[in-house]
């Protein structure tokens, strides 16, 4: 887990895709790669009412990311200071191993450069004390970014449990 958290309050999210738009704009991406994605789940009937959920799926910057060891050239790496997982483009040869390895499909293919791109929490912005572009421009303020150490205990636990549950899934089948 990186030193940061990026949490979505699903109750507030209206699925406006502002986060995706600003992510792509900030990273200057062409048609194709979407570093963060709003995945629409549903609609399902809840108490007789159809309900859709919007799940914010960026990179989770795992504690032991699978994409990092599969990268044959060392282009996919974890920042030692804060645990952000990012791609060093000069080393990426475009084999797409990381895309296949990641259980969430987080690394994306940039057809323009022939290299992999992925969510890096807009680390240049973070280094300047700013928030990632998706968080900054979230219309309903359902995205929250901060240092994991500053997260209050309950939310932290909830978040840890949800991610951990996923990773500890007894049948690691994808």
């Amino acid at each position, binding site marked *: 887990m990186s030193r940061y958290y990026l949490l979505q309050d699903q109750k507030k999210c209206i699925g406006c895709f502002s986060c995706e738009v600003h992510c792509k704009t900030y990273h200057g991406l062409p048609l194709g790669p979407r570093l963060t994605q709003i995945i629409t*789940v549903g609609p399902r009937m809840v108490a007789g009412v159809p309900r859709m959920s919007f799940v914010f*799926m960026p990179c989770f910057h795992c504690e032991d990311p*699978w994409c990092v060891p599969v990268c044959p*050239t060392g282009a996919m790496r974890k920042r030692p200071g804060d645990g952000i997982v990012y791609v060093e483009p000069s080393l990426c040869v475009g084999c797409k191993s990381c*895309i296949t390895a990641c*259980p969430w*499909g987080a690394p994306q293919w940039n057809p323009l450069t022939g290299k992999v791109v992925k969510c890096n929490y807009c680390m240049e912005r973070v280094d300047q004390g700013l928030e990632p572009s998706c968080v900054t421009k979230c219309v309903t303020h359902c995205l929250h970014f901060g240092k994991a150490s500053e997260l209050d205990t309950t939310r932290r636990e909830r978040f840890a449990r949800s991610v951990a549950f996923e990773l500890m899934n007894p049948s690691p089948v994808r």
Partner: protein
Amino acid sequence: MKGKSEGCFIALCNPWDSGIETAGTPPNSGRICGDGMGGNNCQKAISRSGDRGGVFPCDRADDQPTDPCFASGTQASPDDAVVLKETDCVVSHVIDRLNSVVEKPGGLCHACRRELAGLRDLLLQLTQGTAERDILDAVSLAADRLHGRGHCETARRAVLFVVTALRYFPGEFRMHAVNRHCEAGVCRRLLPAPCQVACPAGIDIPTYLALTAAGRYEEALEIIRKDNPFAWVCGLICPHPCEKACIRSHLDEPINIRYLKAFVSDWTANRKAYPTAVPPSFNGKKVAVVGSGPAGLTAAHYLALEGYRVTIFEALPKAGGLLVFGIPEYRLPRDIVAREIASIQSMGVEIRTGIAVGKDITLQELRGQGYEAFFLGIGAHQGYKLQIEGEDHFPQVYDAIGFLRQVNLGVREKPAEKVVVVGGGNSAMDAARTCLRLGCKSVHIAYRRTRAEMPANPQEVDEAMEEGVQFHFLAVPVRIGGDNGQVGYLECLQSELGKPDASGRRRPVPIDGSNFRIEAGAVIAAIGQQPDFHHFCDEMPCQITPRNLIVTEPPSTRTGAPDVFAGGDAVTGPATVVQAIAAGKQAALDIHHYLTGSIGTPPVFRVHKRCRIPFSPMPASEKISRLRIPVPVADVEDRSRNFEPVELAYTDEEARREANRCLRCDVCIRCGACERVCREGMRVHALDFRQISGTESILGDYHRAQERCIACGACALACPTGAIEFLEDGAGREVRLCGTILNRLEVQKCHSCGGPFVPSRYLDYVTERSDAVTGRKVLRRLCPACARESRARNFVKT
């Protein structure tokens, strides 16, 4: 590198190269100084940024105050300056300069950035070889517009690089746009194939091979004829230096490049009209060509294409020069030469035979008739003498070129029953084999070195041996003897090979007392030729070397007289037809440059990439298993007593198979980038390359990729020229090298959406690496999009 402090200034130099020094008075900002540690003084240009920046030739670096480009008169404040050497490409440099501005955030308004990026993209087309001929007009238009009306200072400064580079280095831009050639060798997509470089006429060989392989014979012929008006002739008799350079010879044997030219010509001539170029309208200038050999005819062809009215003067009764009077008919049927000459005549070139310039009409008289330039392509028609005893005592001692001329003029009489030919070159073979065909009982060749040193084409030597010519190696002729004015024998000394001489071949050293005689009724000396200037008497218009050759300044064909140009055997001494053709092409360029009154050095003829034909896909096993198909030759019995062609023909199928063996070196530049990424990056080792020179390596094992390649596609991304292709369709992934299918892997289906996922070998590669770290076995069956969705469902909080 030195630098006097004057304003803010960074000189970006390699310590091995010469440096930049600021000059004393403003606004000057850069002058090249010193030689650098490398000591080579090969600077081409100086490039500097700033409001009086741009790319300037070294000697004009101080010009700018009076230059209209700099009328704005702002303070000069160069930011950085770079020396460009001969090995730097001005076009690429300008693109880099534009890129550094366009890519830098800020400093440009939206409109200017878009214009500048558009300009950069236009220039990129030049370096990619995708540019149209008129692209330079578009570039200069866009540059001028931005320079005059750009909103931002940064954009106006940046575009100065384009404006100045276009002004001072138009030739380099033209070379990129028209010839698709980068002389510095920086633009990797423009590197020519080794065969094309080796061809003196610079034929775009890979392109015509690709067209031949596709069965587009007419287009193939068109490509050849763009660079060589004698496609058919060269297809039959060219000594094919291209095949020596052929990269395929590192795998098995070179492509039969030579014969395929003849094949496409033959095919086209038999089915369609033999093509002729259509010249533009008469431009009002007349040029005289002396000599109707390959050099003269080629010069006439290319001059006619520029709109000149060309008249060829030929001393002999038939046009064709050495093609008709030197090369025997069994190698080059006369109707083929006639057809090629007719095609040149149909462009309006007049050939006047039986007129010896110098004797029947002088150059001065021709000048009076309105001819403004002259090309001397008079060839080398005088054989060297043997300089031995008895040579002048007998009428049966001939020189090969004179003998062949007589035979080709129609005097088909055998010189004697037994003939001995002295020499080891192609003329010696021609003379000996012609003698056989004239009915001589026995024909001998006496050569003073061994077979290995023979300058003749090895195939010709083989064929002569097959036909029954007897060779005497290490035989140095010393005397011709006989009785009553009739040659009886040639006396030779046996010799052995000593130390190499100036030509690099080992010198024969005669052994005393080893005299032996070869019985013969006639002796033919074939030891070399020189030009014959006796028509010109004393009024030779140009200088002549001690070896009786015309003096020019290679690579140009200019002589001492401004309106006289020369090329071919008369300049080089006896050489090949294709070298004469190259000289004719260069002469046409030089004469055009002279007659249009252009300034500067005349252009030097360079290779010209005509187009890039798409690859034709072919399995690797097939590509590598196809061996060179030799051209069938007639049986010895059938051929050695008549003048019928020795070489027979390919079938359609054979021609296409042979052309398909081409490795397409016009696209693959053999840099080995694909192999490096496969070996060092991916550590898959699927591509097994073999080093063939200091900088080049080629795929040596065409089968290994099938066993090891995981179809990741990194090689295709690393390839700078697009030679490696990585193709993905719904069913599989394919890796191709210049169309050769190295590997194809079927992809697994995604367990959720049924769409394509990845090939199992690729998945094994990924899983193995990730499992090694996670310590568990992870089964991946969903494509990334489905994986993401299925995870998202788990995250829904209810």
